């Protein structure tokens, strides 16, 4: 187990190094830089001013030198300065992480707490009206883009209640804080919940046909015990995998949701930073997201062993 862990950690480092190279060079391949954008907004360019600004920002240096400068700083905990705000990148990124983390966490919670039970019910009630209804709901969840759903929620709120669940940076109570995040989390988590539900359903259907389920019923176990204790425990592995992958994909949905609900999280910030070609922000944020995704995958792998005793990571 220990050797496996060391091997996985080593692979993670190699992956992160690879990602850092890809992020860095892909960003430079994209045409235009912050100086182009600043001067484009002004509608003119003075070549001397442009060269001076490029020198100030260090983007006149060879790419390898720029890369080494960035990675060196990153290893020392120095993320550099935002080209736009001229503040330390860490100072810009750090306050936004908890906002997105809360939103993502709540969305995943929504996804799991809605998707798994409904998936189980749908499987157990296979072929009934309830099953069909749940399948329609899950299909809708997969089909509705989150930005559209978000706008629909906002429009409906304004039209029906004259109120709008827009981000409140200073919630006074726990309930207010929850309300601030709950609606956008539901909007972004709806698709995830639908996917979780479908995977849970198909996985459960497979497990429910196994002999040991029949044995459990024969031994007099209640339906709930059969479904949730015996069947779900064995059907959960693919669901965990999907939730792990969804955690990584969530960032895409969050970009849109944070924009629609005006939430000042990292996802929206990333888009703005890309728009401005704010390299220090983009590089470090994408690197941060990469670390989260790599660790999420690692955690999912470890959870396999916890949920299924048959799986053991041995040499």
């Amino acid at each position, binding site marked *: 187990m220990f050797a496996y862990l060391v091997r996985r950690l080593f692979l993670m480092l190699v992956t992160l190094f690879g990602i850092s190279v890809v992020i860095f060079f892909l960003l430079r391949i994209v045409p235009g830089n912050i100086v182009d954008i600043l001067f484009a907004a*002004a*509608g003119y360019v003075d070549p001397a001013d442009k060269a001076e600004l490029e020198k100030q920002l260090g983007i006149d240096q060879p790419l390898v030198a720029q890369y080494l400068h960035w990675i060196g700083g990153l290893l020392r905990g120095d993320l550099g300065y935002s080209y736009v705000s*001229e503040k330390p990148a860490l100072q810009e990124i750090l306050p936004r992480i908890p906002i997105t983390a809360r939103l993502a966490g709540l969305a995943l919670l929504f996804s799991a707490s809605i998707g798994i039970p409904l998936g189980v019910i749908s499987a157990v009630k296979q072929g009934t009206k309830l099953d069909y209804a749940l399948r329609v709901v899950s299909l809708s969840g997969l089909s509705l883009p989150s930005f559209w759903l978000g706008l629909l929620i*906002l429009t409906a709120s304004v039209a029906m209640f004259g109120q709008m669940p*827009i981000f409140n940076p200073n919630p006074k109570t726990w309930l207010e804080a929850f309300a601030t995040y709950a609606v956008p989390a539901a909007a972004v988590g709806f698709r995830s919940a639908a996917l979780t539900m479908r995977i849970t359903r198909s996985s459960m259907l497979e497990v429910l046909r196994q002999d040991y389920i029949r044995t459990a019923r024969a031994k007099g176990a209640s339906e709930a015990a059969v479904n949730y204790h015996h069947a779900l425990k064995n059907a959960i592995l693919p669901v965990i995998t999907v939730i792990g992958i969804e955690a990584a994909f969530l960032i895409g949905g969050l970009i849109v949701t944070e*924009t629609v609900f*005006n939430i000042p999280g990292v996802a929206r910030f990333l888009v703005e930073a890309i*728009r401005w070609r704010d390299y220090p922000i983009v590089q470090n944020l994408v690197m941060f997201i990469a670390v989260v995704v790599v660790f999420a995958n690692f955690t999912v792998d470890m959870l396999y062993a916890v949920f299924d005793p048959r799986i053991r990571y041995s040499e």
Partner: protein
Amino acid sequence: MRSVWALAAMVALSVLTASTATRAGEPKQGGILRMYHRDSPANASILEGATYSVNVPFMGVFNNLVIYDQHIAQNSPDTLRPELAESWSWSSDNTKLTFKLRQGVKWHDGKPFTSADVKCTFDLLMGKSQQKLRQNPRKAWYSEVNEVTTSGEFEISFDLKRPQPSLLAMLASGYTPIYPCHVSPAEMRTHPIGTGPFKFVEFKANESIKLTRNPDYWKKGLPYLDGIEYTIITNRSTAILAFVAGKFDMTFPTHITIPLLKDIKSQAPNATCVVEPTNVSTNIIVNSTSPPFDNIDIRRAMALALDRKAFVDILFEGQADIGGTMLPPPQGIWGMPKDKLQTIPGYGPDVNANREEAKKLMQKAGYGPDKHLAVKVSTRNLAEYRDPAVILIDQLKSIYIDGELDVVETANWFPKVARKDYMLGLNLTGSSVDDPDQSFYENYSCGSERNYTNYCNKEIEKLFDVQSQETDVSKRKPLVWDIDKKLQEDVARPIIFHARAGTCWQPYVKGVTIMSNSSYNGFRYEDVWLDK
């Protein structure tokens, strides 16, 4: 007796009503004005900014030497008012402009304002100081200024190379605040210090901008508001819904398109909304340095094919203006009168006749029903650029030109245009001051950085100087009209239309005036107040 009592009661009631009405009309102190901001500006430095996204939130932090009257919608030479300058005077030969400065004004950090600050500001703008702006988009405005000199602590003079009455207009722009000497340009980008009615509190990129009341403002009793808070909402639908839901007191100025204005009026019928020209023209840039548009006949044919009214009807439901380079009257001061405008080829009302003439020109150039000219129509990837570009492509079909839309990301748009890597482009040009000097020199003079089409006509450039030196507005106007007409006839940069946009605020917001010939000069907000 009963009637006497009734009469007395009525009189008392009317006196009471009248006095209440007077009180209701009087400005009230206090309250925070909540507005949304359409995007996150690059920084807080107006001198380095090139978009009104910077002016709107930060104009209230500063003062100018002179300013356009904030309660008269049309900026004109008659609406110039003293601000940090108490008065001004021209020398007899109109080459020296002297300002007497206001005494007792303090910067937000408590330091006194003097003529040295004014000199520092203009040395910075003219590139003469040790410290440099990160970018200096309006350096060309001061090309006729030799030197800015102080005479004591409260007098400053601008020595000009030649008379240029429009200098005052540029000094009155929201783009020309006075900066303190003792604060570096870098600090001004992150924490601006001004003398204005509001002090800077914080700017969180992509989140919010907060200003608070300056209790030591030199205009006693002002500002009325305790502060202004801008929430940055980049999604227009979310922003407008939030306004409708009452989360904001006012929309971002001139941010509402005409179709969206209808939505607001139906969902928030009590809101006050105004539609004004933005002094941003939508125009065609033509690469006349290479084929096929090096052929003047093809350029003229293209100009003749334009159905400007169709653009206005489709995009603005009829609420936009057709004109030349200068914003047309009545809102524009310098635009050509309608009868003169209609004498320009392509501006006449008979679109079919114009297009028949255009077809003949195309046939003369070797194109016709069997041989179409294929062109790429490049434009920026923003709705206000893309939408008219699509209509343009449709209209060009009628004269054997097959256009293909080439959408360019914002970051690459200007570099592409600057290196002339386009055939035909659809562009937007904003004028921060409604004055021919700003527009003509910037966009049409030979070698100007913003002369994207490389149009160069030495004869017309001489006329630029003639109009620029004319101090009599009534004499200057015909000169400007002739130049504008010639620019359109030369197809230097065909103007399609001048846009209009809406601004809305809740009924309790008072004292807001939206400028009708500039989107850059009307955001001091010192006497805006909330009636609630």
